[in-house]
């Protein structure tokens, strides 16, 4: 019996040795360094940091390397590490208006205070495979002309511009005594507030949010969106230290923010005005913040007195299924042995089949009798 337990252990150990070998691949090739990954695969790093809810590019790189490039597996690794870290406190809210901007676009105004800045983007590239990248001697890219915003300059967000006219719903206010929730610390209960919804979406799977956001555009809970503003850059993070009585800067982080502006004809609860959907993720994740802001807006149907008809508006549906670590675990748990339950079902199916054939036999018998009688 002791031996048997070891048998299982041996199998698992072997499997993991195989995994390690496959992960490394051909050892005549140099191993990837974390620095190479953070530099050259930054968008993967970004996604893993965002959905792993841990802003640490080196750890994200390690996770991706260990996960053989499987981003969801890497997110999982990062999350499992994150839970073991002590909590010192919660930082002050970041102010994206003071962001050191590297990219900033608005689809609603041709020009606006602060200007438009394309920055590092795939937009307007031609999607042609660049075979020079495949060749070994990759040329150093040209030095771009920079037109960075001046540091410390406050660049107002588009939503603030419209707000002066009262056309735009103001920034959401939370009640004085409201403590911002944290769904990694407290069990989620429905209905959830917008703070928890946004946290859930920020950690949520990019693909899932993309599909949901896309569905709203195709008419499943249409929200008439305009990309009011998307910005990417660095913001300062600070912590209020009780003993000192003031904010202490901790450093800066890269974030991507999207403010979606949605046409809104008004309802019993709110006047006609532009409403907003919001998206923000650590790192560079433009697709994610855009999808996130579409879904955020859709989830606000109740507050705005709209009718809920579509999946993207269904808070319980969206929040319960957005997490790819949960989803992966539960889908893949079907690999675990289930033979006890299967045995119970085997027994049932055999019984049901026996009953079915018996019943059918009887009816066929009756028909035969009838035919004979005729």
């Amino acid at each position, binding site marked *: 019996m002791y031996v*048997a337990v070891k*048998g299982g252990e041996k199998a698992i150990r072997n499997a993991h040795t195989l995994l390690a070998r496959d992960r490394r691949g051909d050892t005549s090739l140099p191993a990837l360094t974390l620095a190479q990954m953070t530099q050259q695969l930054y968008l993967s790093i970004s996604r893993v940091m965002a959905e792993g809810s841990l802003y640490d590019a080196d750890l994200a790189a390690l996770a991706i390397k260990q996960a053989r490039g499987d981003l969801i597996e890497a997110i*999982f690794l990062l999350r499992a590490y994150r839970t*073991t870290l002590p909590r010192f406190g919660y930082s002050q809210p970041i102010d994206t208006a003071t962001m050191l901007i590297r990219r900033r676009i608005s689809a609603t105004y041709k020009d606006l205070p602060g200007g438009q800045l394309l920055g590092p983007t795939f937009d307007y590239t031609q999607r042609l495979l660049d075979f020079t990248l495949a060749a070994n001697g990759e040329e150093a890219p040209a030095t771009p002309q920079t037109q960075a915003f001046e540091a410390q300059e406050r660049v107002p967000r588009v939503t603030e511009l419209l707000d002066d006219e009262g056309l735009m719903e103001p920034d959401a206010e939370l009640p004085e005594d409201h403590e911002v929730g944290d769904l*990694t610390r407290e069990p989620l209960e429905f209905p959830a507030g917008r703070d928890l919804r946004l946290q859930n979406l920020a950690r949520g799977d990019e693909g899932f949010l993309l599909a949901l956001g896309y569905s709203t555009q195709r008419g499943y809970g249409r929200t008439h969106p305009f990309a009011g503003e998307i910005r990417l850059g660095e913001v300062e993070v600070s912590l209020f230290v009780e003993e000192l009585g003031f904010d202490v800067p901790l450093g800066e982080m890269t974030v991507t923010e999207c403010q979606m502006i949605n046409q809104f004809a008004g309802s019993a609860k709110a006047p006609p005005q532009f409403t907003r959907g919001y998206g923000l993720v650590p790192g560079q994740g433009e697709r994610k913040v855009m999808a996130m802001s579409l879904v955020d807006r859709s989830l606000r149907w109740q507050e705005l007195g709209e009718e809920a008809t579509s999946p993207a508006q269904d808070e319980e549906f969206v929040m319960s299924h957005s997490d790819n670590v949960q989803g992966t*675990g539960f889908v893949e748990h079907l690999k675990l042995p*289930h033979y006890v339950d299967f045995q119970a079902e085997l027994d049932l199916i055999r019984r049901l089949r026996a009953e079915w054939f018996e019943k059918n036999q009887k009816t066929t018998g009756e028909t035969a009798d009838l035919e004979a009688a005729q």
Partner: protein
Amino acid sequence: MSTPATSFTDHYNFAYLDEQTKRMIRRAILKGIAIPGYQVPFAAREMPMPYGWGTGGVQVTAAVIGHSDTLKMIDQGSDDTTNAVALRNFFVQTTGVNTTTHTKGASLIQTRHRIPEEPLSEDQVLVYQVPIPEPLRFLEPRETETRKMHALEEYGLMHVKLYEDIARFGHIATTYAYPVLVNERYVMDPSPIPKFDNPKMHRMEALQLFGAGREKRIYAIPPHTDVVSLDFEDHPFTPQEFDQPCAICGAEHVYLDEVILDDQGSRMFVCSDSDYCEERRTEGHTGHLGTNPLDAPSNGTAKDNASSKEACK
């Protein structure tokens, strides 16, 4: 058992979770014990194993385990299934406690899908891994609605499902995760154990704890609590019966696994509870196949390739 990896305990707290988290989980467990069968929401942590692979059970075990405990870890009734091995190793690494395969010798048993055949005693705790804690989930997918149904004891829908089974098949066609009424108040999902095991929950001497990590719920059945499988007066609950004893140890009235022996479809039925089977054989019981046909010493000795146990799981 393997030796505890000291390097791991250097970096992580005893039983992996920090003490703050353990206290939070213990509070949920205490609440669960105080309200038998009620699903207590708790802030499940992200664990280093996937959701759906026992994270709930692991968190409950981690919150109650102490240095003096002896842990038994089973899956499908067996100590040897891969995930049981993986989870056992997790606790060996993070706690260094003693482990055992003997039901009687364990103070703490974590299980997936089975209750051991050996009756449990007052000084034991049984921890179940739960995938979907909500017995009403497949009748009503909304948490907001099911919570209300529990609060108001609106369980008519549960019986509608059983009614439909009888109307269609002539009998209740639920074979596992068969719903129970706990302490005459809450309808509870016993986790996907076969309904064969349901009667063992009724007035069990041991404390039963249930952990669902992904769904973030804990519930409990204190010792000696009434646990009644839902049924109709004229269609009473009937546990599954096997019409043959274990092929290896001859045990009757135990849950059996069907093992396919060849591609001609010949098969044997053997104990699902591997420890129980082992004990009986040690005591000298033999089934009609006598020795295990899978023990054929084709490559090395039976002990080396672990098949004596394998065939009895």
